[in-house]
């Protein structure tokens, strides 16, 4: 609670010290007390009063009709797979400076100058030879130049994984623009956890590389199939510091809600157990299998076959 970052006035929001406590987590009963008064979806009442101001409840969810719902410690899971993928995409798009997707554009630099004290990165107005004025962004330490990007892409193309571990990442590399594209969520998963520390080691400044490595390590530990409670407590302590370090490097526009959610993940792990039972990889894989699912919707006649899928397991086994 008495961390050195809390008194820092220059690295984070400018001229602000932090004295507040983390927000309280509500128990099921407390949530129920709040939700009970809101209308249900079948009432068709529209959004309740003060929506978006003091709360974001749209309705009383139908799950509260289950008698035991308020006793559960964790009712809905944040999906680690999507969070990891979105965080990774933000990082890679910003670091590789992908046009339209980077969080380090002119607007974000302007926001940065209003909220942070980083004068070296402020947008400068420069007049060129013809006398017209132009806004220029000084290069940021967390963005790679085109030559560096080429080195990175060359390296990714040469990376080989053991069989069945990951897809061929070389296929995602676009050498012409020195960028990555069409990465599937599992590619992001592997890149985030295994390649990120190696990839940026000599390319980014040490402070940036270090925090990205810590983040990568965090996700790796979080996704372990077997966890010890002490380790999870350590993760919970570390993630706040890791996010603070990220805040010292990246601009405010980088931090949308997906960058914020990792802070709640260790708590969910502590309560709900390993993430592999609570993430969506298995379900997404299920959706993508035509034999399990796709034909169901396209051919109405075949619907019966999903219904007997329980039976089809049995017949295979015996």
């Amino acid at each position: 609670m008495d961390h050195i970052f809390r008194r820092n006035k220059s690295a984070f929001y400018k001229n602000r010290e932090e004295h507040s406590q983390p927000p309280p987590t509500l128990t099921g009963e407390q949530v129920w007390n709040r939700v009970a008064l809101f209308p249900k979806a079948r009432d068709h009442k529209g959004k309740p009063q003060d929506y978006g101001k003091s709360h974001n409840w749209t309705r009383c969810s139908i799950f509260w009709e289950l008698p035991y719902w308020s006793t559960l410690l964790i009712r809905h899971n944040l999906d680690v797979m999507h969070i990891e993928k979105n965080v990774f995409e933000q990082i890679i798009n910003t670091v590789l400076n992908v046009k339209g997707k980077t969080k380090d554009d002119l607007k974000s630099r302007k926001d940065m100058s209003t909220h942070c004290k980083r004068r070296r990165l402020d947008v400068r107005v420069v007049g060129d030879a013809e006398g017209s004025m132009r806004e220029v962004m000084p290069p940021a330490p967390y963005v790679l130049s085109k030559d560096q990007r080429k080195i990175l892409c060359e390296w990714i193309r040469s990376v080989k994984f053991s069989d069945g571990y990951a897809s061929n990442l070389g296929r995602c590399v676009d050498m012409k623009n020195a960028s990555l594209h069409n990465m599937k969520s599992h590619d992001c998963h592997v890149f985030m956890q295994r390649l990120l520390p190696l990839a940026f080691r000599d390319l980014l400044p040490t402070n940036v590389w270090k925090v990205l490595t810590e983040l990568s390590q965090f996700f790796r530990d979080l996704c372990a199939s077997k966890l010890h409670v002490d380790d999870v407590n350590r993760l919970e302590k570390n993630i706040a510091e890791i996010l603070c370090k990220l805040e010292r490097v990246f601009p405010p526009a980088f931090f949308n809600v997906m960058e914020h959610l990792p802070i709640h993940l260790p708590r969910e792990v502590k309560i709900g157990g390993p993430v592999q039972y609570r993430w969506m990889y298995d379900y997404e894989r299920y959706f993508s299998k035509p034999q399990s699912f796709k034909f169901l919707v396209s051919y109405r006649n075949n619907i019966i076959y999903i219904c007997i899928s329980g039976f089809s397991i049995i017949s295979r086994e015996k």
Partner: protein
Amino acid sequence: MCPVLCHTMDPNRAWMYNRVDGKYLSKVFVAKVNEFITFACSQEEFQRCQKLKCPCTKCRNKPYRDVDTVKLHLYQWGFVAHYYRWVHHGEPFLEYEGAGTSSRTAQVMENPMRDMVVDAFAPMMSPLNAEAMNNEEQEPIAEAKRFMQLLQAAERPLYEGCEMSLLKAVARLTNLKCEYNLPHRAVDAVATFMKEICPDTNDMAKNYYEIKKLLAGLELPHTKIDVCPNGCMLFWKDNETLDTCSVCNEGRYSRVSKEGRKIPHKQLIYFPIGPRLQRLYVTKSIAPHMTWHHEHNRPAGVMAHPSDSDAWKHLDACFPSFAEEPRNVRLGLCTDGFSPFGHYGQTYSCWPVIVTPYNLPPWLCKKRQFMFIALLIPGPRNPKGNLDIYLQPVIEELSNLWTDGLITYDISRRQNFVMKVALLWTVSDFPAYGMLSGWMTSGKLACPYCMEHTKSFRLANANKQSWFDCHR
């Protein structure tokens, strides 16, 4: 026998890797190696060439050696790793077809198909329903008739002198259809072809339609519920007879077919969960695994399965009567948008709702076979707030399964019990989180944990919310 279990270690073969006892060869090992050699020598392959493949760590089942050398190598170096199944010495490789080592197969597999039929109808035929059975003798109801028909099909060979029964042949064909997504015309063709191959006096089904008739008793139920085209209400229960939506006054039917049937705009397909869970308990290979969460022991503080977690234990602590019966089922519920026609052209996204039982051990849990579709919410648009309307049948069934339970036959213990079901949590991506929980995950208050205490602020230029500096 379950296909996923093939790789587990056979405890009877643990001696293979306990070669040394202190300084010397262990006596058990020597004795068992002799047994192994006699087993291998009794196989056909040895009779032919009088030599054995050497399974020691150096030779790795490659060169053929004579018996004494093999013995010597095994004493010196031991068995090659993970050689629990002696496939190179005449033991069959375990596959779906279930040939296998051991006594297990021999006990069960006399007529697997007959067992399966009995399995499927076990709840009906169980002692608890003995009275009902007596009644059946007097007036065979449709259910029983179907059952009899299935039993007959299970007993009846495909043709005179054939080892495969009719039911098995038909079930395999349907299974192939599911596995490879065959259109039903292809199944028609294959069935006709099979009929022609078999000797003249065979009972093989001619086409897909006949196959369906033969299997009619085995399928699990599903119902179609008409929905208002705007998703305001279900034509279900009290509202089943209405012709227009009571909220938006939209008509229920789009047109009338030539035969005079009314065709609804939209249909919700609902697959009841209870019968599927019951089916797990009447399947010999799965039923014993359903109590795994209760039987395994894990050192304190280590988590490797949801049953080790606080959430699970808390539920057990709050409802001791529920926790008492390890066969009660804990479910997870997942939903996500899915576009069946690809991302191009006309966009259509339906929302399947899937439930998975968490009772199973880690190596079975979340396998494709154990994900049950509970609902198929029709598109073409995202249901958004109306997701709750569509979920009504599922929630109603879940609360019934929690309060009353369902009488289920457990084949592993040969008992009836009342199975109760609890929903442990939901799994979804972030936008769907908002739809399920009712806390909208967008805007300033997007984070469902921080709620109104969030420190996010709006960026003037980028016009976005930022969670910068919220973590100190």
